């Protein structure tokens, strides 16, 4: 049974359907990259998977014990966070909220998990620092730690390397790869960076107006959609 299975899903925004009859699935331990040009519905699809937006048609099925609220989500950064006074520890701890239910306070177990994840991502030393004072790469690690606190099975990242320099981007990809392999956590990432997507991912989902592709990364490189998108030919 797959973690997530999309069956004939159509989604859209502002009354326009952007994705039609999409089928794909994510299994335990997969690394899926969702690529495609702007406006092809990548972010809308992410919102539908998270349950923030209803699908127009079809259904998204969760399996293998994964619940919709147990996806480790790493959203695009918002304007609010640029001057938000919060310590790294507070931000990471908020990832444990989905295991809290109505209970108001965190337990010692929650705190242990937080320190464990911070250790794993090498941000342990930053725990008392203010989130807004961190560098872009450090911020993404903090948000990744928060996402890991919220999930045991699946990470969902929405363009996580936007605005990071090439070296930090590379480190971030390495880190994701390690988490994917060592912790057996499936990764779904929306990305603009097709070259890296093919390099790291096990599967690719390509969205565009006229073609859809879902398959392994190796098959994608041989496919027509992959060749045009990767080859850097005039593709406007």
């Amino acid at each position: 049974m797959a973690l997530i299975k999309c069956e004939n899903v159509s989604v859209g925004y502002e009354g326009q359907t952007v994705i039609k009859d999409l089928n794909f699935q994510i299994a335990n331990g997969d690394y899926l990259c969702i690529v495609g040009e702007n406006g092809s519905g990548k972010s809308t699809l992410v919102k539908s998977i998270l349950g923030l937006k209803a699908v127009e048609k079809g259904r998204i099925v969760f399996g293998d014990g994964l619940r919709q609220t147990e996806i480790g989500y790493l959203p695009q950064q918002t304007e609010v966070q640029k001057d938000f006074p919060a310590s790294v520890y507070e931000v990471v701890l908020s990832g444990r909220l989905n295991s809290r239910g109505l209970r108001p306070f965190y337990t010692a177990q929650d705190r242990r998990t937080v320190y464990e994840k911070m250790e794993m991502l090498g941000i342990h030393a930053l725990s008392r620092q203010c989130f807004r004072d961190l560098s872009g790469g450090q911020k993404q690690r903090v948000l990744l730690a928060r996402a890991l606190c919220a999930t045991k099975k699946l990470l969902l990242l929405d363009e996580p390397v936007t605005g990071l320099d090439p070296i930090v981007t590379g480190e971030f990809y390495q880190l994701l790869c390690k988490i994917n392999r060592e912790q057996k956590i499936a990764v779904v990432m929306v990305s603009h960076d097709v070259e890296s997507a093919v390099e790291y991912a096990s599967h690719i989902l390509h969205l565009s107006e006229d073609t859809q592709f879902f398959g392994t990364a190796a098959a994608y490189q041989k496919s027509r959609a992959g060749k045009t998108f990767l080859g850097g030919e005039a593709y406007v």
Partner: protein
Amino acid sequence: MFETVAQMLSYPFMVRAFLVGSLVALCSALLGVSLVLKRYSMIGDGLSHVGFGALAVATAVNAAPLSVAIPIVVLAAILLLRIRSNTRIKGDAATAMISTGALAVGVMVISMTTGMNTDVYNYMFGSILAMSAQDVKLSLILCAVVLILYVFFYQKIFAVTFDETFALATGVRANLYNTMIAVLTAVTIVLGMRMMGALLVSSLIIFPALTSMRLCKTFKSVIISAGVLSVICLVVGLILSYFCAAPAGASVVLVNLTAFLVYSVLGIARNARRG
């Protein structure tokens, strides 16, 4: 020194003002941190104008002011929040429209009934004498409710303030908590506005949060500092107003402004020293 303090506290209205004022200052500071960070500060201002209109109408029809004003302002708070989350109408324009509209209704009602007199002045700029013993009881209960809800939902309020999308994705009902914050803000504003004045009460929401953010680096410390600072500024402001025979609302705002400037200078100095 001791005698003058004892004399000040021998007036029941001063005791009431200190009591209700401190509680309202505490509640509004806590709520203010979320509102300021979520860029909702203007909602406080809008609600206080709606409160002015509601109080004017209540006086005109001889009803108990708080029990008329609270439901109306709570409704306005929910409405303002709805408009804000609807991107088709510009939130700030809608807030301005509602607040000036309510202000106009209030002024109209007052001029048609009692006429423009000291009542209007008191509504606008506040009066330390405004609280009756019954108001005090209601204020105490409502402030206790605000504080308990805030502590109980503190973690969720943090999550919703910091990152609403993530909170929603992990199953936190963000709209519920946003509405809760707006409703609690509405109640706090109505309680505070008769002492502080409709035009000045939103300062209780905005100042403590902004001041604390100059120096504090964590959410918890901002919350605690805002709460403490807000109460201190209110008490100092009331004492000033008593001894200088100055309007209470304006005194409290000026003390808050001074605190903000002091914190800003300290913040700049600290940053300069570090780098």
